[in-house]
């Protein structure tokens, strides 16, 4: 009995890995991914950071929070509706694997994109601007956890029962922009009014930014452990709506 469950677990993990590798091969060069996942965070960064007095480390911390959030959360809303439209998503739904495995695979895709682009940002920050990293292990944990959490956030939008990526892109972009402006990325938490700070605490990006500040600059407003815990918890929490929405999609015929 135990052997059977272990075999099943091994199979499910291998299937999630197959989904991940396939998506990495087929999606990373699509124009939508290049625009929303790769270019957008840099565009946002330069729009709001150029010609403002900021230390290199601060800039890198901000860029890392931006790339982690924007890139990781872009994959789900783009890939899944597109696959539904092309009919390839049915291939996953008909395959002998659990819905959670599929969602894990899809979350990993966004997370890996997020981690990859964050690594690129970090390299540019360190090599070109001479930024130093205060706590590398905290940075690694933050980028990985943040990428998974934001990828799961994107998955909520990707799971909306529709075959048109446009139906999903608009609300997901709207939410991500809103998060950007309430989360202490451009205005530090310490400079916010109590009301604004209360709103900021509702956003996972607040904790990601605070964590990047700890890891790169060496100081943040909240405990880094709290930041890590919130990112982990929000990542898990964000997986619940996609499960429900997929079940709803099965009733509606998507």
């Amino acid at each position, binding site marked *: 009995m135990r052997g059977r469950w272990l075999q099943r677990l091994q199979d499910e993990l291998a299937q999630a890995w197959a989904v991940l590798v396939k998506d990495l091969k087929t999606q990373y060069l699509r124009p939508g991914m290049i625009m929303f996942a790769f270019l957008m965070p840099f565009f946002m960064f330069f729009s709001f950071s150029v010609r403002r007095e900021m230390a290199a480390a601060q800039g890198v911390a901000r860029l890392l929070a931006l790339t982690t959030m924007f890139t990781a959360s872009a994959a789900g809303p783009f890939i899944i509706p597109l696959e539904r439209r092309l*009919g390839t998503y049915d291939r996953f739904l008909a395959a002998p694997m659990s819905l959670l495995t599929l969602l894990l695979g899809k979350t990993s895709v966004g997370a890996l994109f997020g981690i990859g682009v964050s690594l690129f940002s970090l390299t540019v920050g360190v090599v070109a601007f001479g930024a130093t990293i205060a706590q590398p292990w905290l940075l690694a944990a933050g980028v990985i956890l943040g990428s998974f959490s934001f990828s799961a956030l994107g998955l909520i939008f990707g799971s909306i029962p529709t075959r048109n990526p446009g139906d999903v892109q608009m609300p997901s972009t709207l939410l991500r922009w809103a998060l950007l402006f309430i989360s202490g990325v451009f205005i530090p938490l310490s400079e916010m009014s109590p009301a604004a700070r209360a709103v900021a605490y509702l956003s996972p990006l607040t904790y990601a930014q605070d964590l990047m500040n700890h890891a790169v600059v060496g100081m943040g407003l909240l405990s880094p452990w709290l930041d890590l815990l919130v990112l982990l918890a929000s990542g898990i929490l964000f997986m619940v709506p996609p499960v429900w929405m997929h079940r709803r999609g099965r009733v509606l015929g998507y």
Partner: protein
Amino acid sequence: MDNAIEVENLTKYYGDLLAVDHISFEVRQGEVFGFLGPNGAGKTTTQRMLTTLLEPTEGRIVINGHDLAHDAYPVKQQMGLVPEESNVYTELSAWDNLLFTAQLYRVPRGGRAKQAQQLLETFGLWEKRDVKVENFSKGMRRRLSIAMAIIHRPTLLFLDEPTPGLDVQSARVIRDLIRQLNAEGTTIFLTTHQIEEANQLCDRVAIIHHGRIAAIDTPERLKAAFRKVQSVEVALEPDGQAHGEVLKTLPGVTTSVKMGDKWRLYTEDPSALLPQVMDYARANGLKVISLSTFGPSLEDVFLELTGQQVGTVRHGMQEEKPRRRGIKGQMGGGQ
């Protein structure tokens, strides 16, 4: 276990729209089962419910002894699905498409490459194995799509409209492949709106109409009904209503219907009727503009099976009109 599929009282509503209306049928192990109907009749909806992609509103599906509502995992392992649109990954090569599917269905690592090679050779795609699928023709994509559906050697294969839009050669190759798979023991559930395809391939056929099963039988038995609705279509010049009165009295004509500038004469034996039509034209000094024979259309078969008169609906596939919750259909066909 005699039946590969057992369906009881299967029903699907999309909101208020009734797509499948309490249908019941069985598919026996090892048979090719045809599921026929015009667009919108409920074929694809039924197939999507059978393949776990769509949740039924009501009813029970048992596949290979497993109730789909509670025990879908082993069923998914045992079935393959070829949807109407070839859902292959165009950014990948044929080889990568097959290996990915093999991974997804947990084909043992050691056997994946061998199985993929064997399938690509069988399906005539081996030479193109490294070519990206975006460069494939529709027929090649279709063949690859079938290869992907059977890489894990399913015991039950669902095919949704496998040949429409393909050239004659590709369609023939695919039909041969279906026969071969069936000969190797695979049960085939074939959804189609092409009578001749069902006739060539299926052991038994179910006709679905307005979401209900109108008939289930062997093609030969259904063809007994089909024979009554073969027809000869003639256009005469000068045209006139009077032709209909005379033409319908010709021996063997069961019904005559005016269709635009033509007359359609229903008969069991078109070859015997053709010379009589020519004789009528010659005797009356009429010019024959066109003269054609037609096999039974699916729509005519439906009308026959449901006790309505042939010719009351224009020939050719027509979209089904949706029915809404609480409104019973007009068809009288039983299960």
